[in-house]
C-alpha cells in the first residue's frame, strides 16, 4: 500500500525521493506527472513546493504519503510512522460532526476518551472553530471546512506533515493567524513539513527552503534556501524579496511552457 522504504539509520533525511517518476493512465492516454524528481528533506526542515497548476505537486505529496505507488524511482522515509497529509480538498467525512472528524485520528491511535476530548477542543481552538464542533461539514463555509481538515491533520501527531494548499480558501487575516500557529507547532513538535502553496509570499514566510516544480513533466527546476530569520512577517521586505525572486523564476518557467 505504501511506496516507501524506511531506513531508521539515515537521520539526516526525513524524506528522500530518488528519481521518482509517476505516470497516470496507459498507452496514448498516459500523462507523465512526475519525471525523475529527487529531493531530500532534512528532519525538522520546512520545505515549500511551488509550481504551476497541474505540475504534479499533489501527486508528489500522495506518493510521499504512500497513497500511490511511483511508476519509477524510490521514496525513503525515516522513522516508521507514515506522514500525515492534508489534502487539497477538505476530504471531511460527511457523516461525522466537526468534532468527530477531528477526533477520528485520535480514536484510531487509541487515545482514551477524556484525552481525545481535550485534544479536539484544543485543536478546534487553534483553527478558530471552537463554536462549530457540533456542526456537520455541509453546514460550514469553504474556509471553515479547510480549517477542520487542518485540525484533523494536526491531530495525527506525525513527525512528517504534508500539506496541500492548506490555507488556499482562507482570508488574509485568518491565514496570518494560522501561519503563526503552524510555525509554533512546527517548532514545538520539531516537525518536518512539505508544504504546497500557490502563494509565493506564503512560501517565503514559512519555508526553510522553496522548491520549484516545472509542468508536464514535473521536474525540480529551482531550489532556494530562505535565510530570513524567524519570526518573520508576511509583509517584511526580506520576505518580499525572496518572494519576488521565486516569482521571477516561476514566471520564466510558466512563460516558457505556455500554459
Amino acid at each position, binding site marked *: 500500500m505504501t511506496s516507501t522504504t524506511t531506513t531508521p539509520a539515515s537521520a539526516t533525511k526525513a524524506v528522500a525521493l530518488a528519481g521518482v517518476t509517476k505516470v497516470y493512465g496507459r498507452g496514448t492516454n498516459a500523462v507523465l506527472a512526475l519525471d525523475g524528481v529527487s529531493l531530500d528533506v532534512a528532519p525538522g526542515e520546512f520545505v515549500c513546493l511551488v509550481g504551476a497548476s497541474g505540475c504534479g505537486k499533489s501527486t508528489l505529496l500522495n506518493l510521499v504519503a504512500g497513497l500511490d505507488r511511483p511508476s519509477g524511482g524510490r521514496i525513503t522515509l525515516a522513522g516508521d510512522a507514515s506522514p500525515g*497529509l492534508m489534502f487539497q480538498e477538505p*476530504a471531511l*467525512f*460527511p*457523516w*461525522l460532526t466537526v468534532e468527530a472528524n477531528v477526533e477520528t485520528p485520535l*480514536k*484510531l491511535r487509541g487515545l482514551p476518551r477524556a484525552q481525545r476530548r481535550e485534544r479536539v477542543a484544543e485543536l478546534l481552538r487553534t483553527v478558530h472553530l471552537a463554536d462549530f464542533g457540533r456542526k456537520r461539514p*455541509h453546514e460550514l463555509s469553504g474556509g471553515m471546512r479547510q480549517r477542520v481538515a487542518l485540525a484533523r491533520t494536526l491531530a495525527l501527531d506525525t513527525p512528517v506533515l504534508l500539506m496541500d494548499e492548506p490555507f488556499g480558501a482562507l482570508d488574509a487575516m485568518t491565514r496570518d493567524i494560522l501561519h503563526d500557529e503552524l510555525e509554533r507547532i512546527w517548532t514545538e513538535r520539531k516537525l518536518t513539513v512539505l508544504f504546497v502553496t500557490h502563494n509565493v509570499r506564503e512560501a517565503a514566510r514559512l519555508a526553510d527552503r522553496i522548491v520549484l516544480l516545472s509542468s508536464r513533466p514535473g521536474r525540480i527546476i529551482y531550489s532556494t534556501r530562505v535565510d530570513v530569520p524567524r519570526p518573520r512577517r508576511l509583509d517584511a521586505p526580506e520576505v518580499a524579496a525572496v518572494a519576488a525572486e521565486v516569482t521571477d523564476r516561476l514566471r520564466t518557467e510558466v512563460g516558457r511552457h505556455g500554459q
Partner: protein
Amino acid sequence: MASDTLAPATRTDAEISGLDALEIAGREKEASRGARLWAGTWPKLAALALALALWQVVVWTGWKDPWALPGPGPVLADLGRYVTSAALWDGLATTARRAVVGFAAAVAVGLLLGLAVARSRVLRAAIGSMITALQTMPSIAWFPLAILLFQLSEQAIFFVVVLGAAPSIANGVIHGVDYVPPLLLRAGRNLGARGVNLYRYVIAPAALPAIVAGLKQGWAFAWRSLMAGELLVVIAARTSIGAQLTYARDFSDAERLMAIMIVILVVGLLVDAAFGAADRAIRRRWGVLDQGGQ
C-alpha cells in the same frame, strides 16, 4: 423563473437584529409543525380514499361477480372479523418472529458476504456474479434442499429466507462499497485506518446509504420467501400468515385473501416507515435531505 417575487417576510426595516432573526426562525418552525404533519398525512388519506372509491366504483359496475371481486364493504367487514380473531394475531406472531429471525440471519450473512466480496479481488472473481444468480433462484427450488438439510423444522424456513434475502443485502453492500469516494478512502488510510478500522471508520459509514437501500430490498425478498416457505410445512399446527394466504386462495375466499393482503401491506408500511426513518436520519446527517421530495 426570475420574474416571481418571493420576499418571504417583506420587512420594511432592513436592519433586523440577530436575535430577532433567530426568534423569527423559531416561530416559523412552531407554526409549521402542525402544517407539516398535515402535509405528510393528507396525501396518504387522499390516496386511500381514491383507491377505495375506485374499487367501489368498479364493483358497482358489476364487472365481475362478487365472489370473484368482492367490494370494499365485505372485505373490510371480513378484515374486521379477522383483526378481532385469534387467527390473525397467532399467525402474525409466528410469521413476524420468523421474519425477524430469518431477516437477522440474512443480514448477518449478507453483510459478511458483501464486505468480503467487495474488498477481495479473488472472492469477487470467484463468487461475485454468483450472488445475483442466487438471487434469481425461486424459493421453491430450494425447498428440497431445505428439507434435506433441516428436515421439517423452522430452520428449513429460515434457510429459504436467508437464501432469498442475503444475496440482495450483499449486493447492496457491494454497491455501496464500490462507490465509496476514493478521496475519503485515502483520507481514512492517511488518518491511520487500516484493515478492519478502514471498514469501521470509512467504508461502512460511507456505504451506509446503499447498505440501507440493500436491506430494504432484502426485507422484501425475505418476506416473500417467508410467505412461500411457510407453505413448506405447517409445524405443530401453528398457523401463519403465509399459510393463511395460500389457504384463502385454495378455498377461493376472495374476501379473506384481500383482508390478508391488506394486513401484509400494513406490515410492509410499518417496516418501510422504519427504513424511511433510518434513511432520513442518514440524509439529514449528510446534508442531502429536503432536496425535492421530503
